[in-house]
């Protein structure tokens, strides 16, 4: 179970490959469910040129750890990984990576979705979008 906050761009699939090597559980899992959230170049009808992701250091890690532990207690999973970007980012940049490993697929599917929904509703991150003529805080999660 690992939580990472990154203040620079990261490549989620390369991170997964590296994590799987370090986790040393080859052959133990039959299912990996992965979600990657990435920055779109448009939102609410406007082109978005850049985005700033603010967070609450300390509380962020605490809640990501908390929801990871909740998922591990609710489903029979082997491991989970959450990586979340903060700071200045550009369209197409990955924002979040959630991965769950389990013996069978139902647990991985259920737990990965749980992690994303809980992250979106409880982890203290905030997005500010830069449009061509102004910037604005994203005021709710979709």
């Amino acid at each position, binding site marked *: 179970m690992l939580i990472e906050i990154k203040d620079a761009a990261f490549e989620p699939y390369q991170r997964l490959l590296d994590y799987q090597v370090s986790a040393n559980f080859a052959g133990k899992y039959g299912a990996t469910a992965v979600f990657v959230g990435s920055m779109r170049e448009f939102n609410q009808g406007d082109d978005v040129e850049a985005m700033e992701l603010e967070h609450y250091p300390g509380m962020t890690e605490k809640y990501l750890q908390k929801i990871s532990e909740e998922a591990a207690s609710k489903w029979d999973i082997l491991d989970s990984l959450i990586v*979340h970007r903060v700071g200045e980012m550009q369209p197409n940049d990955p924002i979040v990576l959630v991965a769950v490993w389990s013996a069978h697929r139902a647990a991985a599917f259920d737990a990965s979705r749980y992690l994303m929904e809980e992250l*979106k509703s409880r982890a203290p*991150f*905030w*997005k500010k979008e830069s449009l061509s003529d102004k910037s604005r*805080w994203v005021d*709710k*999660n979709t």
Partner: protein
Amino acid sequence: MTEAVIKIKFFASLREQVGQADAEVAESHASTVIEAWNSATNNMTMPENTLMAVNMDYVEASHAVKAGDEVAFFPPVTGG
């Protein structure tokens, strides 16, 4: 005495509206989260949907606070 204060933090749009990121409130001025808000913001009306945390756990406005606590106010979260 530095121990006799409550640490206050504001994040994101709320930080911009309040005009400060950090503040301190004397323990004698606030026994609950909402009193800490009132003292730190000079009785500014709290925006609807404001979220509150004490020592990095979500709480309600009526939650008790004491010296040494870290009280945070922020808008709905939008990560992921």
